[in-house]
C-alpha cells in the first residue's frame, strides 16, 4: 500500500548554550513517557500472533485491520501484566476503569482511533526509586495504562527515512494491535545537572523491572520499549515551570541521556536569547545529539476521547490483585540490596555495575564458578574498557559469562596471569573460540619451567649489570626493572612473583 507523505514542519536553525552555563541559569524539569510492548502471545484485541519480524501483513485479521463489523475483545493476560507492572511501581490499581477511544486519522492506525485509556487509567500514583551518583531519586509515576500499538510505516525515497521528502510510504499492520503499556511519570524537578543521568537511570531501572516481571522483551532496538522525553526549563529563582517539549521515540538509554542534555542546551539558548520555547514534539538525531522540531502541539490535536463502547469496563477483583501482588518476583532494587550484601561491594561499585547493566552478567559469571571479586573485576575493568572502545555495551560483547568464569579459574589456578588473561579475552572477543582454545592457539601458557626461567634471569642479569649491582647494594626497589626485563624476555608468560623471588636469590639478597 502506498501513499504520499504528510507534510511535517522543517527543522529550525539551532543555537546552543554550553551545558554548565545553561545549568547555572536554569533548572530543568523532566518528564518521561515510556511505551512497553507486552510480550503476550496474541494481540490486545484479537487472536493474531505478535512475533517480531514476521513478513509484512501476515499477522493480521478483520479485527486488527479494522474491517467493517469487526469488534475488539480485550486480552486478559495483557490486563494482568499491566496490573503487575502497576503493583511493581507501587501504584494504586483501579477497581473499575474503562478503555477510551483516542480519535485521529493516521494511515498506520487501521480504525483511525486508538483504543487507549483516558481519565480512568488501570494504575495510578506510584513511584520508582533510582540511584544516581550515590543518591536515591524518587521518580513519581502519574499513571500506567493499557492501549494498542499502531502499524508501522516505512517511508521510501527520502534521505532521512522520515515522512518528509519521501516518495511513498508502505504500511505493515503486523504491529497494529499489539498490547502497549504506557508509563507516565509526574514532572521531575530538582535533578539539576544530573537530569540527563536521572533520565537514563530511570530508563534502565524500568527496563530491569519489566524484565524481572517477564512482561516484555524490552528490546529497544526492536521498538518494544520506547521513550518520549519531556524537558522544560525554569529560570533559577523562579518557581514557575517553563513550556515543555516532547522528544519522541528515543530508542537507546544513551540517546535518552543525550537528548535531555541537548534539549537543555537548546532551550537555554532560546530563553536566554529572549525567545520562547514552543510546545512541540521533537525528533532526536543520533549523529548530532540534538533534536529538531516535529509537529507543533500548539494547534493541539483534539483527540475527542470518549469511553470505548465496544468494550466492557475492567473491574479487577481486589482479591485477585492481592494474589498478583503476593506473587511478584524479587524486584530489581531488592535484588541489588541482596547482591551488594552477598558480594560485599561499595555503593559506588554497585552504581557502576548498575550503570553498565552488568548485574546479570556478573551474577551469571559467579554462578559459572568465578570468585565474586574476579567476576566483577573482569566485567567492570577489561571488558567494560573494550565495550567502550567499540561503542557497544557489555551485554552485546561476544563473550559469555561462562567464558569469563573460565578465564578467572585459569588465573586463580596460576595457569594465566592478568596480562595473559587479557590476551585470552581479546581472542575470545575476536571470535577465536573459547578461553581454552585461545590459550592453546595463541600459546598463552605461563612459564612454569624453573630451568627456562632461570636461564632467562641469568641473561637479564648479565644484560643489566648496573641494576643488578644496585640490588646487591641493598637498593631492592631496583629489582622492578629486572623483573620487567624478565617479563619482556618471556613475552609476558613468566610468573612475575616467582621471577622476582629467583632474582633476589641469585643476587643473594633477602628482604
Amino acid at each position, binding site marked *: 500500500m502506498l*501513499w504520499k507523505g504528510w*507534510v511535517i514542519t522543517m527543522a529550525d536553525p539551532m543555537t546552543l548554550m554550553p551545558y554548565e552555563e545553561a545549568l547555572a541559569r536554569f533548572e530543568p524539569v523532566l518528564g518521561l513517557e515510556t511505551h512497553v510492548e507486552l510480550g503476550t502471545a496474541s494481540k490486545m484485541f484479537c487472536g493474531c500472533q505478535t512475533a517480531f519480524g514476521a513478513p509484512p501483513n501476515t499477522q493480521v485479521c478483520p479485527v486488527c485491520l479494522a474491517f*467493517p*463489523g469487526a469488534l475488539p475483545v480485550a486480552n486478559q493476560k495483557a490486563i494482568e501484566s499491566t496490573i503487575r507492572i502497576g503493583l511493581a511501581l507501587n501504584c494504586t490499581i483501579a477497581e473499575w476503569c474503562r478503555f477510551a477511544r483516542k*480519535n485521529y*486519522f493516521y494511515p498506520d492506525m*487501521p*480504525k483511525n482511533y486508538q483504543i487507549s485509556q483516558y481519565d480512568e487509567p488501570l494504575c495510578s500514583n506510584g513511584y520508582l526509586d533510582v540511584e544516581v551518583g550515590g543518591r536515591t531519586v524518587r521518580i513519581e509515576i502519574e499513571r500506567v495504562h493499557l492501549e494498542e500499538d499502531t502499524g508501522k510505516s516505512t517511508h521510501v525515497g527520502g534521505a532521512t527515512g522520515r515522512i518528509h521528502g519521501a516518495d511513498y510510504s508502505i504500511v505493515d499492520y503486523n504491529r497494529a494491535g499489539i498490547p502497549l503499556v504506557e508509563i507516565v511519570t509526574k514532572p521531575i524537578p530538582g535533578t539539576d545537572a544530573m537530569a540527563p543521568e536521572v533520565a537514563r537511570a530511570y530508563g534502565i531501572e524500568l527496563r530491569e523491572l519489566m524484565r524481572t516481571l517477564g512482561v516484555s522483551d524490552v528490546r529497544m532496538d526492536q521498538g518494544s520499549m520506547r521513550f518520549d522525553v519531556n524537558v522544560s526549563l525554569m529560570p533559577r529563582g523562579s518557581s514557575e515551570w517553563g513550556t515543555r517539549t516532547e522528544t519522541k521515540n528515543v530508542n537507546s538509554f544513551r540517546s535518552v541521556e543525550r537528548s535531555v542534555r541537548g534539549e537543555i542546551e537548546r532551550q537555554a539558548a532560546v530563553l536566554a536569547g529572549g525567545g520562547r520555547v514552543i510546545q512541540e514534539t521533537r525528533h532526536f538525531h543520533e549523529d548530532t545529539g540534538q533534536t529538531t522540531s516535529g509537529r507543533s502541539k500548539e494547534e493541539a490535536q483534539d483527540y475527542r*476521547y470518549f469511553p470505548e463502547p465496544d468494550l466492557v469496563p475492567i473491574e479487577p477483583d481486589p482479591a485477585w490483585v492481592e494474589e498478583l501482588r503476593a506473587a511478584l518476583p524479587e524486584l530489581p532494587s531488592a535484588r541489588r540490596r541482596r547482591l551488594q550484601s552477598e558480594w560485599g561491594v561499595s555503593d559506588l561499585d554497585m552504581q557502576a555495575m548498575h550503570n553498565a547493566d552488568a548485574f546479570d552478567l556478573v551474577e551469571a559469571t559467579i554462578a559459572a564458578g568465578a570468585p565474586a571479586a574476579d567476576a566483577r573485576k573482569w566485567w567492570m575493568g577489561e571488558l567494560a574498557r573494550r565495550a567502550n572502545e567499540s561503542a557497544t555495551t557489555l551485554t552485546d560483547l561476544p563473550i559469555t559469562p561462562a567464558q569469563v568464569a573460565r578465564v578467572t579459574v585459569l588465573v586463580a589456578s596460576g595457569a594465566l596471569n592478568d596480562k595473559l588473561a587479557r590476551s585470552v579475552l581479546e581472542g575470545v572477543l575476536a571470535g577465536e573460540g573459547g578461553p581454552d582454545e585461545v590459550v592453546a592457539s595463541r600459546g598463552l601458557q605461563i612459564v612454569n619451567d624453573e630451568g627456562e626461567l632461570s636461564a632467562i634471569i641469568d641473561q637479564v642479569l648479565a644484560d643489566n649489570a648496573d641494576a643488578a649491582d644496585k640490588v646487591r647494594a641493598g637498593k631492592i626497589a631496583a629489582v622492578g626493572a629486572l623483573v620487567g626485563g624478565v617479563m619482556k624476555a618471556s613475552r609476558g608468560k613468566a610468573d612475575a612473583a616467582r621471577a622476582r623471588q629467583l632474582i633476589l636469590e641469585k643476587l643473594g639478597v633477602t628482604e
Partner: protein
Amino acid sequence: MTELFRKTAAELGALLAAGEVSAVEVAQAHLDRIAAVDSKVKAFLHLSADTTLAQARAVDERRAQGEKLGPLAGVPIAHKDIFTTADMPTTAASKILEGWRPPYDATVTSRLRAAGLVILGKTNLDEFAMGSSTENSAYGTTHNPWDLGRIPGGSSGGSSAAVASYEAPLSTGTDTGGSIRQPAAVTGIVGMKPTYGGSSRYGLIAFASSLDTPGPFGRTVLDAALLHEAFSGHDPCDSTSIDAPVPPVVEAAKNPDVAGMRIGVVKEFGGEGYQPGVLARFREAVELLESLGAKVVEVSCPSFAYALPAYYLIAPSECSSNLARFDAMRYGLRVGDDGTRSAEEVMALTRAAGFGPEVKRRIMLGTYALSSGYYDAYYGQAQKVRTLIARDFDAAFHQVDVLVSPTTPTTAFPIGERADDPMAMYLADLCTIPANLAGNAAMSVPCGLADEDDMPVGLQIMAPVLGDDRCYRVGAAVERALESRWGGPLLAKAPAL
C-alpha cells in the same frame, strides 16, 4: 395449497420437516415472487439465485442424510445489508463500500447458516442505518408494499418491505433508535429489538455501538420468535454480548396469555404531533389487552421527553468515530489516488465522495459533540439523560410488567415528504428511542389501519432487560385477538402488488 411464499416461517418449517416440500422448492417460490414484485418494491440490494439455491440444496442434503435440523431449516430469509456475508457483497447501502466482499461472516450470518436458513439476498437500508425511510440509501429508496408512494420505514426498510410483500417470510434488521420497530409498524408486520447484548454485533457494520441491536422481522409473532431464538445468545466475539440464556421467546409466543399481567401506558407518548388514527388504534389495542384480563395503568416516564435530543448526541458521537475507518486504505472506495496526492487528501476526497449527506451530517454533529470544551455539555450531558431514562424504566417496571405506546407517531409518510427536513424525519423515532438508550427489549406488532390513510399502525411493547419473552407474550395475545376480530392477518388487507 396456498402459494408457498404466502406461508409463515413456522408453516414452511413444518412442511420442510415433514418432507412435503424441499428447501429448493421453497427458495425457488420466493425467488419467483421477488422476480415478480421487487421491481416495484425494491427491497433488495443484492440477489444471487445461484448462491440461494446452493444453500437450499445443502439443507435438503443435510435433511436427506438424517441430520436433525432446527425449526427454520430450509426457510428463506432476507438479510439486511449491514451484516457481513462472506459469499455476498456487503455495502451498508453506502457508495464507500460499493462491491465490497467481506472476508468473514457476521455472527448473526453464521448462526442463520447454522440454523439452515437460506439467505435470499441483502436488503436495502438507509446508508449505515442512518435514517427512517431508506431514502438515505445510496442505491435508491425501497417502497412500502401497502402504498408504493410511501416509505417502508427505516433504516431496515428493505427488510420490512421484503417481508410485507411476501418476498421473504423472515428478515433480519438492526435497531439503533427504532430501525426495526418503526419499519415493522409502518408495513404491518412484527419487528423485535432484543435486549442490547442479547444478539451479537460482531460483523454488524457499526453505526452507534452502544445502541445497535440485531433483531428479527416476521409476519407473525411466532415467526419473529423462532428467528430471534435462532441467531441470539452469547457471542465471545462481542464483548458487550450478555452471557445469559436467551429468554424463552418461542414458548412465550406460543402462550399468548396476558391474564393478570400489569401493563403500563406511557403517559408521555400521545397527544400533539400524533396522528389521530394512530392514537385510535393504540387505544383500542390497550382496551383489548384489558379485555383479555390484563391490568392497565398509566405510567409516567418524565425523562423520555429528553430521549430524542440525547440520542442525537450519543449516536452521532459514536458514529463519527466508528466511520473513521473508511479511509480508502484497506478496502472500499478510493478516490483521487493518482500519485500526486497525499494520503490525507485521498482520504478526504474518498470520504467526500463516498458518504451521503445524512452520514456526513451525523459525522459532523458527533465530531462537534465530542470536541474538547463541548464534551461535557453535549456527550456528557446526554449520557446523564441516558441514566435518567434507564431509571424511569426501572421505576416503571416495579409497577408493571410491560410498557406500551404507539410505535410511531404517524403512519408511513409519502416518499420525499421529510427528505429535506431532518428534524421531521428524526421524530419518526420519538417513541422507540428510549428502549435503545436503556438497552431494553421492545417489539412492534400490527394493531390495525389508521382511518385517515388506511396505512398500518404498530403497537410498541417494551419489557425490561432480558424480559424479551414478555414482548412476545403480549404481542402474541394482541395478534391472536385482533386476527380473530379481523378474520385473518392484517397483511391480508394490503392491496395486491
